[in-house]
């Protein structure tokens, strides 16, 4: 076991595998991170675009006057149905809702799921987990920098301001896209890269193993010859034929062995 650990072949293979792991690992982490960023950026851009498009379809004047208790009003239902249609048109959209910001306090106005789900937000329900991107959405289209986890799930959100007829920003529309699809894509890319690295390491180890085997084999032959001669057995021949440095070593060794044999041999024999 000790011999295997200290052998040149083991050292060669271990060194090259370590080198490949370091290089491949570095490449993997950089590529994976950049790919994750790119995927997220693409999703953010998509969300901003969708939110902006949706915002233009909502009547800001009707929306701005809705308050707690107005759930039965026709104007509420119209906007709710609009949001529901938008949500239904894209399987990736999980939630669509509108919010207002009154003196720094953010609350829901119309939620697409109101009337269809028990946990849907009602007009006036406060939203505590605001972030700079959400607040930015009251002025320009924006999207969260990272996934949001709240009582409604794990999503990436995009926002856009809703204007009244005079062009004033009166509310925002929020679009929440289910994060699992993005995470799935990220994991798929990560797993693919792992697989490629794994296969590369195996192939490299096999190639290095075969290459080092030929070198070690010839070094062992020379070593065996040296051992035999050192024990007084001159009946050895150097059988290493290569054109590289080991071949040159073998030739030098052959010359030394020949001279030694000549000196040690019976004078009558040669």
């Amino acid at each position, binding site marked *: 076991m000790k011999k295997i650990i200290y052998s040149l072949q083991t050292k060669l293979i271990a060194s090259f595998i370590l080198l490949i792991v370091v290089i491949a690992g570095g490449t993997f982490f950089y590529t994976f991170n950049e790919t994750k960023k790119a995927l997220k950026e693409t999703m953010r851009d998509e969300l901003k675009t969708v939110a902006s498009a949706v915002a233009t379809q909502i009547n800001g004047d009707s929306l701005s006057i809705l308050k707690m208790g107005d759930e039965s009003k026709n104007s509420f239902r119209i906007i709710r149905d609009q949001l529901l249609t938008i949500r239904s048109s894209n399987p990736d959209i999980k939630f669509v809702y509108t919010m207002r910001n009154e003196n720094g306090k953010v609350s829901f106005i119309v939620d697409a799921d109101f009337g269809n789900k028990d946990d849907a937000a009602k007009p006036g329900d406060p939203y505590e987990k605001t972030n700079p991107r959400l607040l930015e959405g009251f002025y320009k289209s924006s999207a969260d920098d990272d996934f949001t986890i709240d009582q409604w799930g794990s999503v990436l959100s995009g926002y856009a301001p809703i204007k009244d007829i005079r062009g004033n920003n009166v509310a925002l529309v929020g679009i929440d896209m289910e994060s699992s699809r993005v995470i799935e894509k990220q994991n798929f890319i990560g797993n693919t890269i792992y697989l490629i690295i794994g296969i590369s390491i195996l192939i490299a180890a096999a190639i290095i193993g075969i290459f080092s085997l030929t070198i070690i084999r010839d070094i062992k032959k020379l070593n065996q010859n040296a051992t035999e001669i050192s024990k007084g057995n001159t009946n050895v021949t*150097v059988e290493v034929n290569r054109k590289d440095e080991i071949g040159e070593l073998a030739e030098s060794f*052959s010359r030394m062995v020949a*001279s*030694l044999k000549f000196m040690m041999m019976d004078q009558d024999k040669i």
Partner: protein
Amino acid sequence: MNVLADKILKITIEYIGPAAERFLERQAERHLNGLKFSDIERKDLPELAKWVKISAGLLVDNSRASELAEKILKA
């Protein structure tokens, strides 16, 4: 040592190593009627090459011994 002997010695060193001179002297003395290797002439080369091939075959593998003999013959 004459020019021919010197040339043959250099060729043989590549195969036999530092013992080459002593080796060649012994071949010439034993198989070329006591000739001194340093006085070797071109007419002696075929006989020398033949005995080098046989004797060198005891020191190195046969293919190298044959190779050495060929080079001596063409020296």
